[in-house]
């Protein structure tokens, strides 16, 4: 029965946030709900899914547990950050914002639980709408434009995903005689699904959920959305939303693989993985806006995720490991970038230099995050990114491996140039200088996130790695 509370708690929190009149109180409600959510998640994950609420429609399998864990912790960090952040932005009403935040949490949780394709879809759609609201927090022209684009592209994507879902259902109707959409059924009897429908459905679902993930060339909403939303929203999108979309894609992949179309699916994933990395690299080099830069970095890492799956075998484990690393590292980067943005009242290199001088801690964290995300030890992403390479070479895909390394190098150059330009040097002396400086409430959450990233690189807890292995086996990897 407990898993349901995972959904109920945030939704109740959302309700409370909506009803409470005081702007000052709401952030605390968000934080409280997040804390309860995380606590419960930890309990349930420790129970390894035993005697949790278990219906044919909602169940917490190993894959779901993994993603739930990541999203819940990331959300807790972001919620903690929000307390300080919304205090700074006291001039803005935050009722809708807080409500949407918790709604987002509830719906992503539902994504991790859903065992039914349509539930999954409904939940994804709901997250789309919730995020649309979050993006519009700043309420200026730029954020409006970003929101509009996100809404249009996201809705179209999700619509395609729906059609894909229906195709799969129809395939089931033809193959199994009943239009079941339950993952276990579909996987168990996948061999009887008619191949053309499976392939077509996968194409639609890939494009649909790929749009949500932000795989090139469906990535176009990302730079605008991440660029204009508050850093904390960026963190939630890059670490949470994309991850849940990836989860959806994984569930589909599992069916397609079981249906004997795994090779077809992996080919497409390989292609999109490399393409996303390439597009991201091309647009990162010479990037003058450090928040858009992070958006492209997110695109790149989505590419790495699907690349890992596309390689298969050991690549699946690497990809799942990278889910964790990417989420928390993105948290560090976006939150730190948010602080720098506040401290300079700009996110373009023309105005932002020498952040180390103005906000030493945030800038330091930004650099650390940069080294982490580009795969420098001792941070976690090093192992997942190396893992993808190991898988590629291990499966004799030397070309893929070479391209992967080449693109990593390009990305490093593009990202490094901008990040260092932001952090090093001497800050411009602007008379109207922002009053924003490092403060505990706005840096401790980031430190926590970085701590997790570091932990993933130095000491992966045994239960976690067990969970990872279970999830990898669940997906037919090693």
């Amino acid at each position, binding site marked *: 029965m407990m898993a349901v509370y995972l959904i109920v708690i945030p939704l109740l929190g959302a309700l409370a946030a909506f009803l409470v009149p005081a702007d000052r109180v709401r952030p605390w409600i968000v934080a409280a709900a997040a804390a309860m959510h995380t606590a419960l998640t930890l309990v349930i994950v420790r129970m390894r899914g035993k005697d949790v609420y278990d219906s044919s429609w909602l169940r917490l399998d190993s894959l779901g547990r993994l993603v739930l864990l990541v999203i819940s912790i990331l959300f807790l960090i972001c919620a903690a950050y929000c307390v300080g952040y919304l205090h700074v932005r006291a001039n803005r009403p935050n009722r809708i914002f807080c409500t949407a935040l918790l709604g987002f949490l509830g719906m992503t949780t539902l994504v991790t639980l859903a065992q039914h394709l349509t539930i999954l879809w409904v939940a994804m759609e709901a997250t789309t709408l919730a995020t649309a609201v979050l993006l519009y927090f700043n309420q200026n022209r730029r954020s409006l434009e970003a929101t509009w684009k996100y809404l*249009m592209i996201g809705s179209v994507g999700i619509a395609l995903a729906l059609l894909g879902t229906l195709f799969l259902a129809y395939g089931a109707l033809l193959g199994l005689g009943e239009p079941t959409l339950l993952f276990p059924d579909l996987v168990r009897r996948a061999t009887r699904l008619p191949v053309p429908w499976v392939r*077509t459905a996968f194409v639609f679902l890939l494009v649909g959920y790929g749009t949500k993930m932000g795989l090139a060339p469906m990535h176009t909403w990302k730079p605008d959305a991440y660029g204009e939303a508050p850093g904390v929203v960026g963190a939630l999108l890059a670490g949470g939303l994309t991850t849940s979309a990836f989860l959806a894609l994984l569930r589909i992949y599992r069916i397609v693989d079981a249906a004997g179309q795994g090779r077809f699916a992996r080919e497409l994933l390989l292609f999109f993985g490399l393409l996303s990395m390439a597009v991201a690299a091309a647009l990162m080099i010479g990037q003058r806006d450090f928040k858009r830069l992070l958006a492209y970095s997110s695109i790149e890492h989505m590419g790495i995720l699907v690349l890992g799956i596309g390689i298969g075998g050991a690549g699946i484990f690497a990809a799942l490991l990278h889910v964790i690393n990417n989420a928390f590292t993105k948290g560090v980067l976006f939150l730190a970038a948010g602080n720098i943005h506040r401290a300079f009242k700009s996110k373009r290199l023309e105005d932002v230099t020498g952040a*180390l001088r103005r906000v030493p801690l945030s800038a330091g964290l930004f650099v650390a995050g940069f*080294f982490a995300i580009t795969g420098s030890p001792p941070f976690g992403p090093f192992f997942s990114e190396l893992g993808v390479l190991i898988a590629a070479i291990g499966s004799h895909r030397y070309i893929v491996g070479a391209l992967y390394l080449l693109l990593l190098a390009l990305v490093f150059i593009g990202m490094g140039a901008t990040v260092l330009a932001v952090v090093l040097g001497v800050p411009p002396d602007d008379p109207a200088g922002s009053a924003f400086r490092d403060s505990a409430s706005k840096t401790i959450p980031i430190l926590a996130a970085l701590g997790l990233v570091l932990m993933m690189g130095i000491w992966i807890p045994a239960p976690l790695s067990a969970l990872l292995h279970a999830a990898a086996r669940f997906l037919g990897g090693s």
Partner: protein
Amino acid sequence: MSATLVLAGIVLCAISGLPALAHRRAMLLAAPLIIAGAIAGLAGCALGLFAAPAIVNFPWPVPGGAFQVRLDALSAFFAAPVFLLAGAGGLYAERYWPATRGGAASVRMFFGIMTAALVLMIAAANTILFVVTWEIVAVTAFLLVATEHELPETRRAAWIYLVSSHVATLALFAVVVLMHAATGTWTFAPIPSSSARAVLWLALIAFGIKAGLMPFHIWLPGAHASAPSHVSAVMSGVVIKMGIYGLVRVLSLIDGAPSSFGVTLLLAGIASSIFGVAFALAQHDLKRLLAYHSIENIGIIVTGLGIGLVAQSHNMPSIALLGYAGALLHVWNHSLFKSLLFLSGGAAIHAVHTREMDRMGGLARRMPATAAAFLAGAAAITGLPPLNGFISEWLLYLAGFAAITRPAAAAPVLLLILVVPALALTGALALACFVKAFGTVFLGVPRSEVVAHAHEVPPSMRAAMAPLLFACVFIGLAPAAVAPLLGRALQIAAPRVAGAANLTDLLQPIQTAAVIVAGVCAIAVVLLLAATRGARRAVTWDCGYNEPTARMQYTSSSFARGLVAFFGWAMPAEVHGPRAFELFPGAAKFESHVPDTVLERALLPSLSRGERLLGYARAIQSGRVQLYLLYVVLTLLALLAWSAQ
């Protein structure tokens, strides 16, 4: 025991900088801690050179990782100079970068971590640990180079260094993963010849960049010039040796590396030794000059390795031994005299607040100890007897000469002969370069006010140079005593040739000769000094010109002009300023600068061209939502077409 001591050393070095974070007072702990670590570590290495390989294992719950440290003779051989330089550098920094100065805490912290990670990397038995520590060294080194990031020049240098070293790291990823694929383990296991070739060529990129071998040297001059001097000393002395260590380690895993690879090493080594010194001659920035000499010496070391490989693959073990031994001994020697030069040169810079040699001059009278240290270092790096540089070069010369005495040798072996003239040219150019450097910096009369009022550096900084100076002299005078250590390291590096000849016997006569030369020269100098004590002093005669001014002195640029012009085809100079031909020329400014050909004339232009091309990719993100939706539908249709077939 040895491993324990080394680990203790590592830990002490690593934590040496941490107290500084807590409180400025605690910064005083940094030097004692790192020196203690250095002593412990050196003791450990000394034991490790003779004891059987000591293995330490800790569980490390990460994929593929195992915290496995294995201190064999080779590791100990490479780790020893790291500890020595760490100690010297730590002591030097105490006053060179006082707590009052900006970034003092971070300099101490990163310095400690860098040296500790460096030793850990050298001692790592697990390739993942190797990569991790490798990258930690690279990143901390970058942070140290960027210490004075307010200066644009420093930012640029640091950035170029970061990118190059990351490319090296990615290449290393490939190397390690290929090794894993070939051997199935994450340890340094023998590599089957089937995949040896790929591993070797990738390794050449990774380690070549790290070592600053031409044409991968682009990052080195800038980085070493911009870093704090004690950091430059460690980077030049030991960090770039990571590349050499990696190369030697990987080669030791491959039985019968292809001769072609040896030839490549040989030629690359020769090229970077000659051009390294040529570029050095063209510099007017003291630290850039020293940096280019690092490229030269890396070239000499790699040449030695090349000799070893070629000779070994044509089974001439005795020649191979000479090559390997020369290379390894030069690894030690270079760390010693190069760090000595950076510390003493750094002291001069510290005293006069400029790196421009043409603004210095006459420092020998104001800071005699520093000058003496620099002079010794200069003599050593030039390879003059009776100092250590001579010994290693002597071994390499011998290899070249031995190659020609062999009857009817194969073509690659004949290439070995090139070593002799190459070393000869390099040596002579290095001599010119260091006469210029020492002369313009320390001799003559001060070229500016601030130099005229320079003072000798505090005792602790001088004390930091002492052990290095001593080591240079010791190896120069007692090479036979060092031979056994060399032999132990060789047994790991090149087991098949290690026993080919007895190094001790080989080095015995040159040792005697060196002692005699040293003695006679010393006596002669002392006698002459005594004879001319209290001699009358007068202004420099200068052919009767009795108004000599400091500005009339030969500058470093004019000193090197002839040779620089000689290499003009490879390193065109940029000359700004009027050529004054008229009878009474007015005041004019003249400056000449020789940019790095590979970086400034080849790499950067092509990179910027590439960036411009990438600029077209920005059209993707045109801002029109309709276009974005078009991407989606086109992708969909394309995939449908693909899936239907």
